[in-house]
Every structure is written in C-alpha cells, then in structure tokens.
C-alpha cells in the first residue's frame, strides 16, 4: 500500500513537473515575443533608418574581403573574461 501511494505521489510529482515545464516554455516564448517585438523591433528599425549594417560594421580593405584583426591581449586577465 505504501509502495502504491509512493508510486502515485511520484507519478503526480512527475506530472506536475511536466506541467511546470510546459508553463515555463510558454512563459519563455511569451516573454521573448514581447522582447523581440518591442525592444528588438525599436533597435532594429532605428538601425535600418540610420543605415547601420549590424552584420557588417567594419569595412574591408579595397579589393579584398579581409578584415584586419587586432592583436590578442595575451594576459591571463584578458583570457579569464568571456568576452
């Protein structure tokens, strides 16, 4: 009987977790939708209005598509950063 109750509770818990997961996914999508179609929209539209090409901020040298790289800052502090 105890085992059956435990099994039932476990099933209930699994069900709640699955429900919670679905709610979390739905909320995430809603929040991202709001973010994407408000904040992102404003930035994207302003960038387009001002002619800013976010994918190509730097211009290559004439006759080439190469871009010059800045030398790496080879210090441990620099490499400890995620950026």
């Amino acid at each position, binding site marked *: 009987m105890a085992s059956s109750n435990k099994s039932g509770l476990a099933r209930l818990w699994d069900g709640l977790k699955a429900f919670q997961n679905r709610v979390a996914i739905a909320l*995430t*999508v809603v929040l*991202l*939708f709001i973010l*994407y*179609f408000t904040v*992102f*929209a404003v*930035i*994207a*539209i302003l*960038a387009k209005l001002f002619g800013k*090409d*976010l*994918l190509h901020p*730097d211009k*290559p040298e004439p*006759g*080439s*598509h*190469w*871009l*010059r*790289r800045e*030398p*790496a800052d*080879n*210090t*441990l502090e620099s*490499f*400890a*950063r*995620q*950026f």
Partner: protein
Amino acid sequence: MNILGISCFYHDASAALLQDGKLIAAVEEERFTRKKHCTDFPKGSIDYCLKQGGITIDQVDYIGFYEKPMLKFERILYTGLATWPRSWSSFVRSIPLWLTQKLQIPVIIRQETGYKGPILFVEHHLAHAASTFFVSPFDEAAILTVDGVGEWATTTCGLGRSNHIELTQEIRFPHSLGLLYSAVTAYLGFEVNEGEGKVMGLAPYGQPVYRKQFEDVIDVKPDGSFRLNLDYFAFHYGTEMFSPRFEQVFGPRRQRGEPLNDHYNNMAATVEAVLEDTMLALARDLKKTTGSHYLCIGGGVGLSSCSNGRLLREVPFDDIFIQPAAGDGGTSVGVTTYINTMLLGNPRNYVMRDAYLGPEYSDDEIETYLGQNGIPHTRLSDKELLETTARLLTEQKIIGWYQGRLEFGPRALGHRSILADPRNPKMKEIVNERVKHREPFRPFAPSALLDRSPEFFDCSVPSPFMLLVADVHPDKRALIPAITHVDGTARLQTVTREENGVYYDLIAEFDRQTGVPVIFNTSFNDKGEAIVRTPEDAYKCFAKTGMDYLVMGHFLVSKDGLT
C-alpha cells in the same frame, strides 16, 4: 603543470590534457556517449583525461574553454537584430539555450567537475590555430583556419613563429566557406555537420557545371578572401541553411532518401570545386605574404582531404600540417597549447606525430570481457596475430581490428578499424552493404606502408592522419580497385613502424603474402554510430554487422564461433 581543455555545446565535444607541455590524452565525448558528434558536456572525456594523466581535478592548474561565449552571444543578438523580423524562429529557439547553458559555462564546469581553479576562454579561431601550429613539427609556418563560424570569425590567417601565433586578418560571419558547404550539404539532403564528407565523396561523380551561377553566390577575390551573397542563404536568420532563392536558381532540394541524379552530383562537384579553388587562392596569398615554407591548417574545412591534396600539389609550400581532429573536436587541444605557450610562456616540447591519444584496453581486460560474456575466442601469439589476420584478409574476410589506444579525430587509423582486401573489385560494395550500411557512392580509404606508398600513390609527403587525397598511379588502379575512387584518387593513410608498430607489421605481412603493401581501412562503426571505444562496443558492432572476424588485442573471435 596540468592544463585541461574543453570543447562542448556545439558539435564534437571533447577534452584534452596537457602535462608539462606534452599532450597526454585527447578524446571526443561521442566515444563515451555513443552519440555521433555529441554536443554534451564532456564528462566522460574529462574523467578519462584525468585518469590517463594520473591526477585528480584538484591538480589541474588551468581549464581552458574553446570560445568566448559572450562574443558569440553578441553575434547571435546582432544577427537577430540585423535580420529582424525574419529571425524570430531562430531567436526563440536559441535564446533559452543561451540563457540556461551557454552563458553559464564556468558554473557548469565547476558543477560537473568540482574544479575550483582558474578558467580561461580562448577565442575559437585562436584555439584552432594553436591546435595545429603548436603541435606541428614546424618552427615557423603560415596559419590558415577555416570553419563554419566561431564567435564572429569564420576564416583567419596569420603566422606562427616559435612560441608565438599572430592571426592578422579575418573574414566574419555570415561569410563562411564552411557554411556555404554545409548549405549545399543540406540542399543535397544530407545532415549538416555530418554529411559534408558525403558531398566530398559524391563530387567526383559530377562536373562543376554550375560554376558560373555560383559566381553570384560567392564573390572570391584574387587574395582568396570571399563574401557570400546572403540572398541565397537563410542560416543567419532561420532554421534552414539556404533561402528560397537558392532553390529558384538551382532547382528543388533533394529530399532524404530520394535517388541521386546528375544534377545533384553536379551540385556536389560545383561546391567542392568552389571550396578547393578558394582554399588554393587563400593559401597562395598566404604564401606570398608570409614567405613561409610551411602551412598549418585548422578548422573543420581542414578535414577536406581533396582540398588538402590540391594545396600540397599546387601551392609551393614544402609541407602542410593538419592535426587529425582539425574540426571543433581538436580545439580542446588548441586551448591547452595556447594557454601553455602563449599565456604562460612555456616552450613548445611536443609534436603530434600520431593520433593515438584515447583510451586503451589491455589483453587482460579484453580477455575478461570475452570470458565473462561466454564469447569463444582464440589467443594468438604476436606472429600468429599478423599471419592469421593477413591470411584472413587474403581469403576476402572482413575483419574488425581493435588494437591499442583509440584515435583522436574522425578517422580510424589502424587502432579501431575495419579491414579488408583492397584488391577485390567488389569489396567496396560488400563492405558498404554488409557492414557499413551506407550510400554506395562513398569511397573507402587505403592504409599503406610509408616506404612503399610512392609505388602506388602520387604523394610526396607522409599522410599519417588520412587527410590528403592523392592520385593512385594509373597502372596500379586495377590492382587496388576497392580503395580507388571513381576519379582515380584515394584518401591515403601512410603508416610507419615507429608510430604504429602492429598495424605496420600487419600491412607488411599482407604485402609478404600478396605483394601489395596496402590494405582497405574504414572506421570501426556502423552507420550513424561513433567509432567504438571499449571491447564491448567493438564486439556489439561486430556481432550486428557483417564482419567475419574480430581481432582484439591478441584475441581472435569468429562470427560463427569457430575459431
């Protein structure tokens, strides 16, 4: 000094351990999880590296990660903004993963390993560059890294000299040779990050008849730098690789399982020709600007053995070096060597002469496995091992060959290989149908004794990692038809006794019995599986496929139990 390198959460997760400048262990996580191109955190790989190094996680001085996550996230956000509102589907799929996983790298590393020391983040293409130059035999070399994309860079070039690497130029996302190739891979109905090798194998069946149309797809300058026409692509904003425009110009995509035809063969030939010509232009310009005698290549495009073969033949570098895991799997090695050499100033004292960096299982362990599972087997002496295996090959048997340490990288190099007789003109079809269950157009590779390979192949340098395609001499093609591709080439592995003793001796014994110092070698796995790691993996693969014999260590197992 112990430095642990980690690569994960994109494809080909791996770990590597550098001890006092020497690479002690390196392995891809797919060999532990059995999921090909596994992206998971490489827990199994890390545990193996620590065990192989005889240390615990507390004795690791630095952990290096193979990219700078915030820079990559910046690229995701900028691309989302630049392609708004088309980027919605990509945005809603990727952002949750970034917030819960990819921006939590230090937390995940510490949780998974218990590590408390410093974690360093090496830019992706620096890791590729270090993964090739710092383990190469060259004191000075031009460096070229080409892949799909790292943070922003997709292609970089520069110079390595002694203990120093400097990458001076780059091409940035979305302009990517790797992603162009992947887009055509998807168009041809193959899986991205898996089917690129199939496209390379398919290319010789077609002609590059779409070169003119591709001039509108990619603009390549004389210096090899390039820019994609984004009208043809969708990978930067959506979940597809190419846009409707691509299909308007080149016709409908091939659905998975749909028969191949001349058009698709020609598309494969065209993208392969574009890739090779662009790589040649990049390398020629690098030769001109650096004056270096040698070239080191890193990044997934470095696995393109046809391109590598042409580079060697057509660009006046004396030699080129590509490490066996040139793709993302190899960046775990790159971060360790970069930290050790560039950041800590330690001298280089290691050259990667072989790829045998993974786990090994002793004869005792193999015998225990066979015994516990009641698998009939015969123990062979050293001499019997070679003579019996070579004889079985001459009798047209297909043999699972399992010896020593597992290879690092996607190629089986005689430690986890399936072997057969290259002289049999039907052997390619037999192995494709009975064992590998893969597309009939895909070729198989030869392993040849280095000192005898010039008799059969037009290749002037060693090719220990099977990363060079060479012409088979016309008068030899009929002698080794099973490994000669439709265009008369082969993806060659050269073998020396110093680096691969038992395998060398086996090929030498096959030569003694047949007069041919070449054997047919393919990776020990079935379609869609990772290469086997343990004796159990090997036996299961052997049991379910059409191999005739399994040779593990000094033990011979027969499919019908008659040993």
